[in-house]
């Protein structure tokens, strides 16, 4: 295959098959795996001798809450600041549970009602009049028919009136088609995983009626430096593998420095808690750290000697910090001069980053 990014159920096909083969526990209707096996798929473990890699690093109890939600037919809302793996978890849950992560509704300000319902094949409609055959199903409708998980990305960006359509779907588990005077009932196994970013305040706050239809799980930013470094390292290795980068991934020490910078500027205080810092307007999420490190690795592979060093990583780091050319540049400059410059063993970073401001 040459597609740039395979759906995860293909990428992790072997793991999913191993899990399915060794899973003897009861499965909810139309689930490919038992809830416990889904948890193992996401959090890592063992399936009949095969090692299952961790997809999500963090609280087991959170992931269990998410899975138990879906196992009780409830809709799941994954909430969190940007880059906390909401979409990532949602994709893997859909892959593990329904074996299909492709039923997606992308939420934007322009998402129409049809994206949650259906539209018409006008040629057929004109030729044969309204009939079920003339309905062009949305991913939502397909999920309902096939009893699969449907993912809604960025739920809060969807206009409020379109969000309302969801209320009936989630509470009644059916979709009325007034034109045909019928209603399409969802098969068992259907439910929704929505993601939303709780930084986007007030974009389109969910109505309380809609909120009530979801169980909400908040995915937190990684609690500690080591945890975050671990996540970045794991994801960079996986991405590098997909991009066929050379075997030598960036040194743990360099990753730790990227993550240190991100965490310090994100929280506005140095890790030792001693120095207060101005915060940049960039999100500086784990996801960005991952992309900065893998980008640096690619640069080193293609233009350097293959080893990602400060000089390869610093441009990306600076880019993530400086979103506003005036204010953020000042933030970075102050940070470099007051913190990085004095820090033992960080000379290379100081030099490399200084060139960027």
């Amino acid at each position, binding site marked *: 295959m040459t597609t740039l990014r395979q759906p995860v159920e293909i990428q992790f096909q072997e793991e999913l098959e191993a899990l399915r083969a060794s899973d003897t526990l009861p499965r909810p209707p139309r689930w490919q795996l038992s*809830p*416990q096996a889904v*948890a193992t798929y996401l959090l890592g473990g063992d399936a009949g001798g095969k090692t299952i890699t961790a997809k999500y690093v963090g609280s087991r*109890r959170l992931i*269990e*809450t998410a*899975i*138990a*939600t879906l*196992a*009780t037919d*409830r809709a799941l*809302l994954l*909430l969190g600041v940007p880059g906390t793996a909401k979409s990532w978890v949602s994709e893997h849950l859909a892959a593990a549970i329904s074996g299909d992560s492709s039923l997606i509704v992308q939420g934007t300000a322009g998402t129409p009602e049809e994206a949650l319902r259906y539209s018409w094949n006008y040629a057929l409609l004109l030729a044969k009049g309204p009939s079920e055959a003339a309905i062009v199903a949305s991913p939502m409708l397909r999920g309902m028919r096939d009893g699969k998980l449907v993912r809604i990305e960025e739920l809060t960006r969807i206009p409020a009136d379109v969000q309302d359509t969801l209320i009936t779907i989630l509470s009644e588990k059916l979709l009325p088609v007034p034109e045909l005077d019928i209603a399409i009932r969802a098969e068992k196994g259907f439910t929704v995983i929505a993601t939303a970013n709780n930084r986007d305040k007030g974009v389109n706050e969910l109505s*309380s009626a809609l*909120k*009530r239809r*979801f*169980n*909400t*799980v*908040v995915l937190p930013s990684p609690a500690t430096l080591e945890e975050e470094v671990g996540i970045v390292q794991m994801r960079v290795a996986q991405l590098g593998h997909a991009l066929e980068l050379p075997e030598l991934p960036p040194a743990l020490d360099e990753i730790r420095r990227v993550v240190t910078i991100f965490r310090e500027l994100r929280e506005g205080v140095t890790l030792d808690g001693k120095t207060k810092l101005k915060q940049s307007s960039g999100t500086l999420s784990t996801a960005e750290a991952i992309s900065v490190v893998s980008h640096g690795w690619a640069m080193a592979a293609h233009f350097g000697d293959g080893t990602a060093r400060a000089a390869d990583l610093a441009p990306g780091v600076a880019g993530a910090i400086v979103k506003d050319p005036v204010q953020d540049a000042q933030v970075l400059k102050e940070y470099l001069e007051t913190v990085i410059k004095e820090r033992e063993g960080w000379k290379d970073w100081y030099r490399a980053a200084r060139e960027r401001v």
Partner: protein
Amino acid sequence: MHAVYGIRHHGPGSARSLATALAAASPDALVIEAPEELAELLPWLDDPALQPPVAALIWATEDSKKASFYPFAQFSPEWVALRWARAHGVKVYCMDLPMRHSLALRAQVRVEPLVADPADATVDPQPPGDFDDPINALAQAAGYADGESWWEHVVEARGHAAFEAITEAMAVARAAGLGRLDDETLRREAWMRQTLRAALKFGHAQVAVICGAFHAPVLTADALKTHAIKDDAARLKGLAKTKVDATWVPWSHTKFAIASGYGAGVEAPGWYAHLFEAASPDDVAASWLSKMAQALRAEDIDAPVASVIESVRLAQALATMRWRPAPDLRELREASLAVLCHGEILKLKLAETRLLGLSPRYDVLGQVPETLPQSPLQSDFSAQNRSLRLKVEALERVLALDLRQDADRAKSQHFWRLHLLGLAWATPVAESRGKGSFRETWTLCWAPEAALCLIDAGRYGGTIALAARARVETKLEPSAALAQLLALADNVLKAALNDVLTNVLAALDARAAVASDITELMAAMPPLIALLRYGDVRGTDLSGLQALLHGVLTRSCVALPSACAQLNADAALALVQSLDGTHDGLRMLADAALLEEWLAALVTLGGAASTPPLIAGRTTRLLLDASQINHTAASQRLSQALSRASAPVDAAAWLEGFLRGSVHLLLGHAELRNLIGSWLSGMNDVDFQSTLPLVRRAFSTFAAAERRLLLQDILQAGSHSTSVNINDEYDPGGLARVRAGLRGWLGQ
């Protein structure tokens, strides 16, 4: 024949198992792990006015600082067993080492075995891990959140065999070195066995032994054989002894929750009470989540019934996923968070504060019968409360008093007397404003230690008034600091202990006479004046206080000029505050003679060349405010102080003293402002920079709004140069500099 029931102290699961076991076995005697002296308190269990949570308090008669609390909740297995025994007329033996020995052997107050076996103590030099509670340790080893869920899921599931299993498990734990087997524990266990042997000899058909699980293995029939009687007896020979007393005191849920001090280390008493009260284990989750929803609604957060149902489903699904027969507190929290609280942890915390019994605001306090024998001081305390219509409650309550009302004044006096005794029940809320007014605010919150404090204070006297008086006398040491004595006088005055006030004032007077430090002496003035004013409010006879004030004032006035000459900068600043306080206080006191003396002293002080500039400036200001000098005179002094002859730093200090506190002086009077302006712009750069911080400090005592007013005033004046007297000699650069500087200081 006897059966051993090893329980988890305060474990609702144990309590339930025990209730079932006792009903099934119907023993004719109960041998329980409690010190012998508890036996005399047991008849009170028949009194419906004894409502848990309560604690048996046992203390050494001679020294009530040596004491122990034995708390009981309604979900404590011991409580359940004792109630059962009373209801069925079954004889109870208290088998633990009597407190007359334990207290003689030990130094401080603590909460006793019913809390966590000392055998599992916390002071082990090599901490064996989190083994404060052996059952918790086993539960954690098995991957459970706490001992309760383990008990529910593992022990309960075994039915009748549960207690045998516990005894076996504990035998293994003890053999593995879990917990601490020190002398104290071994002594206690020897006593337990001896009591048990005596009970068995008495000829009961069926004896039920109820003890913390940890002791179960050493109390079985086998253990009675393997531990030789003569060894046990030898261990107990010649123990030290002291006389003890015992009573019931109210205890509270929050007290159960605190793991140190007097606490009992129960993680969430509200949850335990819930577990105990739930109709059946199946009902626990649904009823807890309903309570959760009610708590959220009480906080004005929507929690529809439909969501409660969904949360129950989620909790059950989570439990199933985790191989648990039923959700425990963790699953219930996760379900509440995801469904009822929409992921918002703050909402969960709000609701849990109400439910878990961890916050004083929603605490549960037990009750003891009023007829309980009490020490004279305790009875007086209750009598006073009754006549003042005050109730002892654990819930924190705020009480606002109006001292013009007789009833409120009496309450205030009562509280201040208790304050003298150190009784932590009523705490005065510091008044932000209107000192000396008619209002006083208190927070009331009863903590069980207060009962011990009352017992302890009994040695000072048999009534609150007598004890408070005697307590005051003990505080009148010659070494006490002036400020301490003043605080004491304040308290005594408010407590209306007028006879002892005379003694306090005498001590104050003696102390003031030897005070060599002018800052200390002057610092005493404002509180002294405040005392006089408070006293007025309360209609106390104040002649003694007046005389004292007069004495201190005279002494200060005489000492001021020479003492001031030696002050360093910090002391000078402190003194300025006392000067201000004294000045304001005296002006409000309306005692013409005192005020006159004071103003005369200020004139002298201001005139003395040795007075530090900060104080000289301040003196000028105070005299101006009191209309002792007019603006012309003040301007004159200002211009002298700012003249080229004085060092810029001194000038700045003078200015600071002069300006501190209020901006109105500058707003109203352009000539003062101009003097300052020309002084500033006349300086060279070096001087300017070194005086800047000082001037800034003067301005920083103005409120932000005042500073803004001033800036407006100045900038306006600057733009119409008519209103500001700008000389031709002014260099425009200088003016710009002043303006820039002002902008900086004035915080724009």
